[in-house]
């Protein structure tokens, strides 16, 4: 027979090659899991990319003592469109921005507010909830993103995404090492424009901290490249989510508004559509005030994308937001009365 190849090695030889590194991995996995169980590793803090850095930072801010008694919360348009510094100046009192991402559901945002209220005992007076019309039509929030927030708040290692490598890494303690140690020691570069503007995850965190939890979208809006339609509607999930949010949010007045879209992107009936959305949504939320005078559209030059204002647009919008909150306060009879009793949760 025309022999092809011969193995001059047996099972023991093969084991001698393969077993030692696998043994080392197994021992390392035991050590990592053991150290985590015994509390020898730092607690989880998986700020490993843009999204998770925002989530971890805002969750951490929610449970850190703050001066602000007014908190802005919402999706990424709340994060990027609202300058906490400008709103603070407008209201002449500190304001904290705890906005996260559109993928995070409303009950998780309510959880952040509860953390804030518990940490700053009696210090949360007003909540300004802002979403973009684009978010209101999102059919499904991302359980992954919401879970990241909850896991962080509860001190659990974040559940990793799918994939054989990730699962293996989870068993071997790699995910624990990544979320507890690497994320603290090794900043991760951010992609694209965010990378150019902020640099790394740690720099984004520094920026967020220095700006009261607000960020800036450094992109430039290009109408030609903008995708999607402006046919905004309210996804059904928001009814339950909004009612849950209202039930679970701590005792504080709630003002609700929508963030703007670029003028050239929306149709002529956009203002009517937004009004309808806001009315419907507020029926579920039962807020103490509706921020109806916020601009529903703004000139394209103030936008970074369809859903985010740029730095200049954010300053403009934040000034208007401060004025609108003042107006809402006066309508609900709390103007100039910061100690006015907050509404009790239902």
């Amino acid at each position, binding site marked *: *027979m*025309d*022999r*092809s*190849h*011969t*193995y*001059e*090695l047996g099972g023991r*030889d*093969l084991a*001698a*090659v*393969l077993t*030692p*590194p*696998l*043994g*080392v*991995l197994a021992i*390392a996995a035991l050590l990592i899991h053991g150290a985590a169980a015994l509390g020898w590793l730092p607690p989880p803090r998986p700020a490993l990319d843009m999204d998770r850095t925002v989530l971890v930072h805002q969750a951490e801010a929610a449970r850190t003592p703050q001066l602000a008694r007014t908190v802005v919360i919402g999706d990424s348009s709340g994060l990027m469109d609202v300058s906490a510094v400008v709103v603070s100046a407008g209201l002449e009192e500190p304001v904290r921005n705890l906005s996260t991402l559109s993928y995070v559901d409303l009950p998780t945002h309510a959880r952040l507010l509860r953390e804030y209220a518990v940490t700053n005992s009696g210090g949360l007076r007003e909540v300004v909830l802002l979403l973009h019309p684009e978010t209101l039509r999102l059919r499904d929030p991302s359980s992954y993103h919401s879970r990241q927030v909850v896991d962080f708040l509860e001190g659990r290692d974040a559940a990793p*995404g*799918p*994939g*054989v*490598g*990730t699962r*293996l*890494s989870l068993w*071997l303690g*790699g995910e624990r*090492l*990544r979320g507890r140690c690497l994320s603290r020691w*090794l*900043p991760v*570069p*951010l*992609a*694209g*424009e965010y*990378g*150019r503007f*902020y*640099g*790394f995850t*740690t*720099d984004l965190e*520094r920026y967020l901290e220095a700006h009261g939890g607000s960020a800036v979208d450094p992109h430039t809006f290009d109408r030609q490249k903008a995708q999607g339609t402006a046919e905004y509607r309210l996804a059904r999930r928001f009814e339950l989510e909004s009612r849950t949010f209202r039930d679970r949010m701590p005792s504080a007045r709630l003002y609700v508004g929508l963030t703007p879209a670029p003028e050239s992107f929306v149709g002529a009936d956009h203002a009517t559509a937004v009004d309808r959305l806001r009315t419907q949504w507020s029926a579920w939320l039962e807020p103490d005030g509706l921020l109806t005078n916020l601009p529903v559209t703004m000139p394209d030059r103030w936008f970074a994308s369809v859903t985010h204002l740029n730095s200049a647009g954010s300053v403009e919008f934040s000034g208007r937001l401060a004025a609108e909150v003042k107006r809402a306060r006066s309508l609900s009879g709390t103007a100039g009365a910061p100690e006015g009793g907050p509404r009790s949760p239902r």
Partner: protein
Amino acid sequence: MLFNSDVFLRFFAAFLLLYYLVRGHRAWRNVLIVGASYLFYGWWDYRFLSLLFLSSVVDYSVGRKLAVTEDPARRKLWLGLSLVVSLGLLGFFKYCNFFVESFAAVLAQLGLSASPPVLNVVLPVGISFYTFQSMSYAIDVYRRRLPATRSFVEFLAFVSFFPQLVAGPIERASNLLPQFQRPRVITSAMVGEGVWLMLWGMFKKVVLADNLAPLVEQAYHPGVHSGPVIVLGTIAFAFQIYGDFSGYSDIARGLAKILGFELMVNFNLPYGASSLREFWHRWHVSLSTWLRDYLYVSLGGNRRGAVRTRLNLLVTMVLGGLWHGAAWNFVLWGLWHGAGLAVTRRDRRVAGTAPLPGWRRGIAWGLTAAFVLYGWLLFRAGSFSEVVRLTTSLGRLEWPVWIGSYALNLVVFSLPLVLVQIWQARAGDLLAPARLPLVPRALLQGALLGAVILYWEKQASPFIYFQF
């Protein structure tokens, strides 16, 4: 199929099992290798299997004709056919649009408007590698340095051998083809070395190159004009492309070793070179020796005087640059290296033919590294205008707040490579880490495996050289 993907791991596990089962039948083994290699390649796009097959059929047939033809004119004709088909395939799939667009640009410069048809041609993965490998066989048979093979299956296996099919090393038929013709012996040392090479290659790709890629993207972002960041970004790119490409070569060699095959060393500590000449003896060795043997020598090499030798070097390197991609920045990169080689050729010591003493070697290393780094800037820049922007930005001493994080990432991810390579250089043995005693070997390989698993991406990132 990418080496750094889940599907490849499953593919290779299944292949190993079948490979073990056919150990008694050489013909079946070669059929299995061809089948697996075509599956491996077709996983990306089955339509391009026809090109791989066509290239193999033509060069096999030319080889058979050359074996039975003594008439020099007819032999030249047969070789010409092989070159026309191989270079024709490359020219159409890789350079067609480049030349059409460049021609239109030249016409536009002359004030003539032209809107030539631009074809949406997809570049078949690895076409530059397998056409060069197949072509070298025809040339070697023509030069009577190699007997033509009779077995078509063996030739198919030689051209399509999956460990090195899409990104090399570009094997010579004289080395690889006989291995398909003879029984292979797989020893425990070979498996040990193969495992080390695969692990080290995966580490270089998955941990080093893939983590440096975002740093490079960041530094080469059109909005970045900071000289220090561009310098660090270019260093990061030097490590990224090295980790990516040499990682692929190491994995290829490791896979082949486990199957009982020996592939050539494609990278031999190139960043330790203290002259350009030495660098090109250590970087992408399979391509540089290919260009030397089949292009530079054919142009006359160093046999026609000093001026012609330099011109030959320049032409060879420019074409070598163009081999990497149909873009002018690759031509510029080739020109940069060609000019460097031509200029430094004058001084034999600078050119690296004689060892330099102590500190002078250090200076020569620094100068070589700086030269190679600027070459990488040319290579990485997407266009001439980018080359100008990046080069002028080098003088702007802007220090973004994140430069510390940038440097930290660069050091963390490239340091393991630097340390291992210093060790390999001192030991004078690229496989020194595979020959460690049990405990340190287990610790090293365990650490590498852990890091690879930690950074293993669900969506595997392609190797840079796939686009060439």
